[in-house]
């Protein structure tokens, strides 16, 4: 499942809670004047926070009349004789469930976030995509088993376009599986900081040739690439992935100090200039087992 930002999760869970605020509504008795009235009121009393609501709706009791939102919290005496005060949803609807809920109270203009709706329906990935995700995580698990670096943690970086694995391998305190994987991408691109053995980069030598032929510079860092890692990355690795412009991260087991859902949600941290998508629980049982094997 995807690790969403708290604000997104709150929006989703609040769909059942219903968030309402008071607004003032008046009746338009002469329908012909509607457009003129609406134009005027929008100019003088814009609905900033309630811009997802339609300004006017038909009056369910009086077919020849319309109801119009005047304002939120309008405290002028001038409004005292305006009929009614109704309850209504405050938040912009982001998923269809919320929309259905909200329109019971007042019509909304609705822009469905299709991506979030699909995530909530658990239909985000196709069967083929799930198979590919599992295959890549299998690769990370086998790296974990043979890793000379971080104990029992494996990471691979993959170019999802060509499905080539850009993978990873004297102990170095900063050579976490993710840092190693990032440096192997750099090595393939003609850089690199750790002169790591390239014995496991077979698949990628080929790709790097293609990159060099097509484009002298290659992709910028890890732009467009996916990372598969058996355990949730720590804060150092999570930030290294921000600097490297990774596109997506898939991990197996959560870690209490992990930075992509457990202790922090760095991928959606405000103030940071690059955000990536994070999916957790991929082959989680097998990844958990790797961790349990140490203890």
């Amino acid at each position, binding site marked *: 499942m995807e690790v969403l930002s708290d604000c997104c999760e709150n929006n989703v869970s609040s769909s059942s809670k219903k968030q309402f605020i008071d607004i003032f509504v008046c009746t338009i008795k002469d329908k012909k004047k509607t457009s003129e009235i609406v134009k005027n009121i929008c100019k003088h009393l814009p609905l900033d926070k309630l811009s997802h609501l339609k300004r006017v709706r038909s009056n369910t009791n009086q077919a020849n009349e319309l109801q119009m939102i005047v304002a939120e919290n309008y405290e002028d005496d001038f409004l005292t004789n305006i009929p009614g005060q109704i309850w209504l949803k405050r938040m912009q609807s982001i998923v269809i469930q919320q929309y259905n809920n909200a329109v019971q109270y007042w019509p909304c203009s609705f822009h469905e976030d299709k991506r979030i709706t699909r995530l909530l329906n658990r239909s985000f990935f196709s069967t083929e995509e799930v198979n590919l995700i599992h295959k890549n995580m299998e690769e990370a698990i086998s790296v974990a088993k043979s890793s000379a670096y971080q104990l029992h943690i494996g990471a691979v970086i993959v170019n999802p376009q060509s499905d080539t694995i850009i993978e990873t391998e004297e102990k170095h*305190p900063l050579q976490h599986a993710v840092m190693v994987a990032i440096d192997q991408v750099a090595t393939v691109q003609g850089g690199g900081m750790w002169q790591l053995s390239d014995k496991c980069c077979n698949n990628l030598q080929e790709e790097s040739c293609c990159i060099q032929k097509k484009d002298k510079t290659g992709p910028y860092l890890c732009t467009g690439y996916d990372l598969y890692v058996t355990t949730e990355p720590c804060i150092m*690795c999570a930030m290294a992935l921000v600097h490297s412009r990774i596109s997506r991260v898939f991990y197996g087991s959560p870690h209490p100090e992990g930075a992509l859902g457990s*202790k922090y949600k760095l991928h959606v941290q405000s103030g940071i200039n690059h955000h990536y998508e994070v999916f957790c629980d991929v082959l989680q049982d097998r990844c958990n087992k790797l961790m349990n094997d140490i203890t």
Partner: protein
Amino acid sequence: MVTMDMEHIAWMEKTFDLAEEALKSGEVPVGCLLVYDGKEIAVGRNEVNETKNATRHAEIVAIDKVLKFSEENDLDSKAVFRECILYVTVEPCIMCAGALRQVEIPLVIYGCANDRFGGCGSILPVHSAELPSLGPSLQCISNVMAERAIQLLKDFYKGQNLNAPENKRKVKNC
């Protein structure tokens, strides 16, 4: 500026010389210097462009040099890190703050805040957070010659604009 040891100031001056050198060669002007047992044992500056590795920040470069220093002098690198003081012209980023905790450096002294990526409080307080499996917390002394650090960064970004780089690469990552 905080009142502090003249020794710290002297090391910081030296760290600024490194940052200025970096600026002259067109790199992000961040310098860092590690002092162990009263002696300079490692320096670092940003090497992102050369290595095509966006994690190659000054602090990471310097950590690698301490490992090399320890090996060459037959010292236990863990023990060396635990006695080190790191001087750096800009607040370490979130990644580097994590790396400094991982190698157990106890104290960092830095110039100006890093509003984009700062890991010692500006964006996240990685230096002091409860992260036992990463390493002990990191003590920070901030705002040491901050104006000079800010001016250096300003000069760098001004220069970038003048050159109007066609490739965004060069402006990234400090």
